[in-house]
């Protein structure tokens, strides 16, 4: 029970100081800390020392050690990145990072609406700002990510309609589909709806043939995982509503300055990821999911998430906040509550609020427009290369698009290796997720890409394909 082998007290453990420890033991009335573990039987005691690497208690040594490992990484800052597919590189305004590294927010957790008033207000404001973007009246405190947001959205639809089958467009993200399927198994049946090979859009005949009185909802994404804009939203929602089912739409919020929000074409539940709104890519650690609905009791009461509401206090004119309909949660009623709630991604919600406050209506519109322009420029220039076609689907796209390399005779793996040598992270290889497409890759172009970045890509691919001839 000595502080450390070197006799020094670790800076993270103040009461390791021998005199203090002795004083506390005396106060408790025992001789050694071991006595405090009397309830743990001998046979469950871990008998040896934990076999972990030699520690680096000096902060400097630790920093050197970690930095050395991290230096093996190549970053999206030093390379030009065209990867998206569920995590997108956008510009992160300096104030977003300034706010989310504040000790007060970073190290708060579950304080009361009094001493943590700022946390409640910041998250209420996040809900309110997102509500404007999606044009709906209710938004939750963030859940883990889009996978969870979509999973919960369809389970909400199942509870609202009291039906047990959900239909899903077969162009949603395969990763998300995998999460939804696991979240539904074995309670809810998942059925896929085909797309039109030419445009990517939902095959409405197939949808109609699969609609029945068992169907709780149809879930599709807009823009789709493959980047095209699904322009039949109104019709799809209509088909669902006609049969008493709900329309659930996953949306990329960065598109909503230029593309109409799903609530305007009949969506009842809207979900998606807010990572693009002020979060770094963080190797996938910046994800956070949102769910939005109308302010109707039958919808609100089915949210598992925290919903912060605004109220008054005993002082005239003072805003207070608290949990709306807390009784619906698993915190209140365990398995009788709606699904479950716990620590998820609140700090990213606060950050997305900061982002939307900075951007304002004009900023979001300009962002959408810029992404449309730059991605169209990339598609056009790529298509000028012999053997390359972009986009694969004959539809308007937002931010992401499928590049068809089939006629180059090269695999995406080879192409991306070549691009990597030119400091370019090429698009995601789709040959595993969508084998029917052959050699295709999913590219992502946002406001951060300059003309020079795109030209560099085009030039590299031109060299690669021509070199082969």
């Amino acid at each position, binding site marked *: 029970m000595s502080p450390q082998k070197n006799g020094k007290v670790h800076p993270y453990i103040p009461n390791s100081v021998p005199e203090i420890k002795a004083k506390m033991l005396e106060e408790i009335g025992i001789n050694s800390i071991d006595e405090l573990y009397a309830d743990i039987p001998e046979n469950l005691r871990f008998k040896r020392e934990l076999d972990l690497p030699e520690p680096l208690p000096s902060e400097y040594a630790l920093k050197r050690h970690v930095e050395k490992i991290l230096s093996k990484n190549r970053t999206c800052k030093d390379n030009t990145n065209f990867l998206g597919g569920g995590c997108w590189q956008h510009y992160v305004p300096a104030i977003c990072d300034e706010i989310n590294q504040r000790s007060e927010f970073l190290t708060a957790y579950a304080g009361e609406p009094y001493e943590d008033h700022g946390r409640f207000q910041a998250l209420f404001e996040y809900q*309110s700002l997102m509500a404007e973007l999606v044009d709906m009246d209710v938004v939750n405190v963030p859940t883990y990510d889009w996978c969870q947001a979509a999973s919960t959205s369809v389970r909400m639809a199942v509870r609202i309609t009291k039906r047990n089958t959900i239909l899903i467009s077969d162009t949603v993200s395969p990763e998300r589909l995998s999460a939804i399927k696991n979240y539904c198994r074995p309670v809810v049946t998942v059925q896929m709806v085909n797309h039109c090979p030419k445009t990517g859009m939902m095959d409405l005949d197939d949808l109609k043939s699969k609609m029945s009185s068992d169907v709780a909802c149809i879930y599709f994404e807009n823009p789709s995982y493959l980047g095209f804009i699904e322009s039949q939203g109104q019709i799809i929602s209509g088909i669902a509503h006609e049969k008493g089912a709900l329309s659930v739409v996953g949306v990329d919020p960065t598109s909503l300055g230029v593309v109409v929000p799903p609530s305007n074409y009949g969506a009842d539940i809207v979900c998606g990821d807010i990572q693009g709104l002020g979060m770094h890519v963080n190797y996938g650690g*910046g994800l956070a999911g949102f769910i939005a609905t109308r302010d109707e009791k039958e919808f609100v009461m089915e949210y598992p998430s925290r919903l912060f509401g605004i109220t008054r*206090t005993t002082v005239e004119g003072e805003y207070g906040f608290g949990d709306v309909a*807390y009784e619906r949660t698993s915190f209140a009623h365990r398995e009788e509550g709606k699904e479950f709630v716990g620590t998820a991604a609140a700090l990213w919600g606060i950050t997305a609020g900061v982002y939307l406050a900075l951007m304002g209506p004009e900023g979001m519109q300009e962002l959408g427009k810029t992404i449309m322009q730059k991605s169209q420029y990339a598609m056009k220039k790529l298509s000028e290369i012999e053997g390359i076609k972009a986009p694969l689907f004959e539809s308007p796209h937002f931010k992401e698009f499928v590049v068809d390399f089939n006629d180059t005779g090269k695999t995406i793996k080879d192409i991306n290796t070549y691009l*990597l040598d030119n400091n370019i992270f090429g698009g995601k290889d789709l040959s595993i997720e969508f084998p029917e497409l052959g050699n295709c890759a999913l590219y992502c172009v946002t406001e951060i890409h300059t003309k020079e970045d795109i030209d560099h890509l085009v030039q590299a691919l031109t060299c690669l394909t021509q070199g082969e001839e």
Partner: protein
Amino acid sequence: MKPKIRNFHQAKWDEPIIFELSAKGERGILIPEVEKEIEEVVGDGVSVIPENMIRKKLPALPEIAQMKVLKHYLRLSQQCLGADLNVDLGQGTCTMKYSPKINEVLSRSCEVCELHPLQEESTVQGALQIMYSLGEFLKEISGMNQFTFQPGGGSSAIFAMVSIIHAYHDFKGESERDEIVTTIFSHPSDAAAAAVKGYKVITLYPDENGLVEVEALKKAVSNRTAGLLITNPEDTGIFNPSIAEFTEIVHDHGGLCGYDQANANGILGVTRSKEAGFDLCFFNLHKTFSAPHGCGGPAVGALGVTEELVNYLPVPLVDFDGKKYYLNYNLPKTIGKVRGFYGVFPAILKAYAWIMSLGGEGLKEAATIAVLNNNYILKKVKEIKGATAPYAKGRHRIEQVRYSWEQLTKETGVTTEDVTCRMADFGFHLWSSHHPWIVPQPFTIEPTESYSKDEIDEYITGLKKVVEEAYENPEKVKNAPYNSVIHKIDHSTLDDPEKWAITWRSYLKKYKIKG
């Protein structure tokens, strides 16, 4: 230094809602301009969108100059009392320990935050090494055979555990197993996540010693039992000495055992999941392993399993072939995904760095000092009039204790909620407890290893002060807070569909205010 009660007052900015700061035409940030050459080639970019899909009415976001946005959020932050500011030991079960600043610095480097999850493995060897190594550390700490960091928090890890339990029985052709057993002092999500998976939940209650009797478990299990999900020590801080017998009984009936170790802060290097007979366990990296709580995430529930269950884990795993680290998708029985990509990498990095700073011996020191601190507080709280520590009379506790103000409430009318509100006036948090309150008027204290004896004494002095007031002038406590950010909240509107307002636009509509 004799602990004193601070003449505290929290920042109170009377800050408007962000929409009230809007002034038409102001801008918070400008985005990169589109090059003229691009515009020449593609035009305005938006006219390709079909008419019915174009957004015609812009979102009614506020328009605010940059410094005003900054100021607003800085003021809100000051109206929030994080662990870096208060002696945060009143948030029991949550392990509000110090999150070292060096780990924040490291996590903000470009080599962390500017990594895309789909980059080629050769470009992320550093990140994969950190993940792989942390997995190795947790294997040693728990005795499990493989870890994944994919679940985005403790509840997500519980759901992953119950999904694996389900898949395991499914593959064995035993899908008639439709019950999960848990205890009332295990986290609410142990019951709730099981219900999402379609299980009937059987909840066991403690006897007068705070423990579930072995006999009660025996009665609850059968050939319908899919598994057990349990915390130990439970929220009471009492370690169940029969835990190995529990897992054996469940195994004898063909069930699996999942250990909710969201909070394992008192037992690092002392006792492990493996020796207690568990098949699955998880650690919250934002609790025991020091990653910050961030107002409630981003987070990681690091999930570990025995050899038999590795093939059921969510894909991918991070593996090492002796030369390079890689993502392994080759798990034939995988439950699929529970979250996008591989987990919250910054939190993984912070946990790695925390363990590297302490080492094996340091980890055990952290655990034992956390337990010392807890039992010191137990001694002090029991001396406070009106407070009791139900169950386990005369015994020591592990990392936390669930106390009760029942006596205080009987004698003064002052409730847990009242004490909580008054504590805020002195710059402290005090949390009640998870529902249902089978301990009446509960509160849960968990000091961790992070707070000095002086700080602990200061917190105790705060509790004593509030109790003194409760006996002298209960109204004073009941009307608190006075020195916090705001005053007593009207909760009545929050449960009324006509009056609740979850967004500003909804508030304006319902209260007929012109925006």
